[in-house]
């Protein structure tokens, strides 16, 4: 069964460092998303991406964040200068369409900023 895969599963980084979280969406999906979940809190939308550009982003997705689809399979989230409060599980998701979105989530990357 097709699935969304994310790497690494866990990343520890020092405050101020740049991190890149990687995702391989399901191959025939066209819409890609990043969500985050701070420990013990709810899942929060960060950004959606379609046709090589951002479709929508939340207030969390500030200038420190960027997304890219560098090739036909990968979808990345970059945090330029990490802060302690960026520590969270980051989930990538993909879907075939944008309405009645049935998003399929990856296993997540646990980012710990120290």
């Amino acid at each position: 069964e097709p699935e969304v895969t994310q790497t690494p599963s866990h990343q520890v980084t020092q405050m101020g460092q740049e991190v890149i979280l990687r995702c391989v969406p399901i191959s025939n999906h066209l819409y890609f998303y990043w969500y985050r979940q701070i420990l013990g809190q709810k899942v929060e939308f960060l950004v959606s991406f379609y046709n090589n550009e951002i479709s929508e982003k939340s207030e969390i997705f500030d200038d420190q964040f960027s997304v890219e689809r560098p090739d036909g399979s990968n979808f990345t989230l970059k945090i330029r200068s990490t802060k302690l409060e960026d520590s969270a599980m980051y989930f990538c998701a993909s879907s075939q369409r944008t309405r009645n979105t049935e998003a399929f989530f990856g296993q997540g990357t646990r980012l710990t900023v120290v």
Partner: protein
Amino acid sequence: TQLLEQSPQFLSIQEGENLTVYCNSSSVFSSLQWYRQEPGEGPVLLVTVVTGGEVKKLKRLTFQFGDARKDSSLHITAAQPGDTGLYLCAGERGANNLFFGTGTRLTVIP
């Protein structure tokens, strides 16, 4: 501010009991999804409801979308230990993003 409140927040029941989880909002959603999340993993989609009043069944799970598309419920019949997990509702308003609820953590005791 969009808000999807789920109740109860925590629920612990004995195997074989029935339960209902609620997802309420003051906002209208074009569709609503229910997910289940295990510790350390991503949410797994259970069902999508689209039409007001719609009822969908998935084995022992029954999902209903409110007539006004502002709320939803998940009913589990004869709960089993394998149903233990975090249940999340997520509403779609515009295109391209899901707004997640606060979650209900269910524990089914054998």
